[in-house]
């Protein structure tokens, strides 16, 4: 009895300590949102705010009205993230269906060749892609960044694994009835894949939204930048006095990912950890 109540007290104490730590983990985000509402004149006044002093949107309006094409940059990010997400959902499910359900010569070696791609970092592909894009006129065009991520070995792998865990009796029955492969894929396989596809979609969207290395190399002029690279540029461009404006821009830049996380926390965590345990 005694030890049980002591155990309860240690549990409570540890959870209390963790709660304090949790608040500390969130401080950078609280600061970033709060500062975005501070009047520009007070931007550097100490102490800093960790809760918004007002909800005045002046800084947000100033970002949109500045000479930096912020809306264009935002649009580039949305365009690339949506294209890549939709593209991967299509190409990865199609390939996964073939690898999981169809039989054809060389299937397993082709799948293995695709899996090898998981091991290569972006650093080892970027130089030839840059040179190729320069030739093809794709440099400094947002579509170029989207194009190189329209499929992913990880996506194919994830969907294939999921599909293999599903019963294939329905598909076989449909085949017996003489249905074509595309019909089977669309009518029977695709509806079963919803959980895997929403996880893949969410990871792909946030990952693409966050790309920096590739975007910095391939998209140089302001009008073609994506948000992560643009924020870095903005920091220098807006200069020392405009911390509040930089943070207003930043708040807008992180908003989609934070919203996704708040609304679909479990799905995001599942998706991201799955992308970790890919091998």
């Amino acid at each position: 009895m005694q030890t049980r109540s002591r155990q309860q007290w240690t549990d409570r104490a540890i959870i209390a300590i963790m709660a304090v730590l949790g608040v500390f983990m969130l401080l950078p985000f609280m600061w970033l949102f709060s500062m975005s509402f501070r009047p520009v004149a007070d931007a550097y006044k100490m102490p800093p705010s960790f809760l918004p002093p007002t909800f005045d949107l002046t800084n947000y309006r100033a970002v949109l009205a500045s000479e930096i094409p912020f809306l264009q940059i935002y649009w580039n990010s949305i365009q690339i993230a949506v294209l890549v997400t939709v593209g991967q959902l299509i190409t990865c499910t199609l390939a996964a269906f073939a690898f999981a359900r169809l039989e054809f010569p060389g299937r397993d070696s082709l799948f293995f060749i695709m899996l090898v791609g998981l091991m290569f970092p972006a650093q080892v592909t970027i130089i030839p892609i840059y040179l190729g894009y320069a030739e093809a006129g794709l440099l400094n065009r947002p579509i170029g960044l989207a194009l190189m991520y329209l499929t992913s070995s990880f996506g194919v792998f994830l969907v294939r694994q999921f599909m293999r865990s599903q019963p294939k009796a329905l598909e076989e029955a449909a085949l017996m009835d003489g249905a074509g492969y595309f019909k089977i894929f669309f009518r029977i396989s695709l509806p079963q894949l919803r959980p895997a596809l929403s996880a893949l979609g969410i990871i792909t969207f946030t990952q693409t939204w966050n790309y920096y290395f590739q975007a910095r190399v391939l998209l140089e002029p302001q009008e073609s930048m994506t948000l992560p690279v643009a924020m870095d540029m903005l920091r220098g461009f807006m200069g020392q006095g405009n911390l509040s404006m930089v943070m207003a821009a930043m708040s807008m830049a992180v908003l989609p990912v934070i919203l996704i996380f708040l609304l679909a926390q479990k799905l995001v965590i599942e998706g991201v950890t799955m992308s970790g345990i890919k091998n």
Partner: protein
Amino acid sequence: MTAIAANRRSELKRAQARAGYLFILPSFALYLTFVLAPVIVTFLLAFTYYDAIDGASFVGLDNFKRFFTDGRSLEIFWNTLRFAFFAVTFNVGVGLALALALNRAMPAFLLYFFRLAFFLPVIIAAAFVSIVWGYFYGDDLGIINYYLIRLGITPVRWLTSSSTAMMSIIIMDVWKNTGFFMIIFIAALQGVPKTIMDAAIMDGASYWRRFSRIILPWISPVIFFNIVYASIGAMQVYESIVILTSGGPGDSTRSMSIYIVEEAFGSFEIGYAASVSVILTVVILILTSLQLIASRRWVSY
């Protein structure tokens, strides 16, 4: 009769094969174009001197020799390894400590809060949070120094001194990434059989004893997986350093990824940059194969 059946079967087989190739075509063609071919080209470029006008000329191992004999590139290689070592140790260590602390019964709203607090940094772009941390780490206008002074502690030159800059980057990296490892560890801890733990508690085994004799052996494959996974990510470190210090002061925080971009697209030393990325890739391939071997052992557990 049987001849017709056999004929029909082989026709079906051919139709299935045709469908199979058609289904993988978009994905495979994109993969060849944007992954496999560029990797092969990079490996070839690594053995050449590349000139925009004259093209590539074969120079054997010269680029690799240059990397391994040049003081500057060795310092950068060393920086990357040093960063990876500390970032991995603390990311995995802190992640495990957090998981042990959080692996207990609690109300749902607290669980949501903890997941939010520790996982939000994981999914926000390193580029964004590095800018925020840049302001936290400022010398005179920095937020951390403001509170240090208020507490009567000497302020720290977080990013502007070559002896502390790397440490500051590692601290931010742990803040950003440790939640990922925490989540993986929590999943692993929940797999520790309750009956064994209860029996140990009944026998009066101390917490430390339960940890070292039951928990640690049980999750050891996951620890190994996390270490390898963290190392692969840490070796590629790029934007947090670019934004916080641009590799400085001097070269004290420059990483291989930064060096590759600078050499390739700043100095147009394409062949040399390719050889640096080949070296980076080989290190990562070694780490990945370690992971493959480990996960095989993990499955048989």
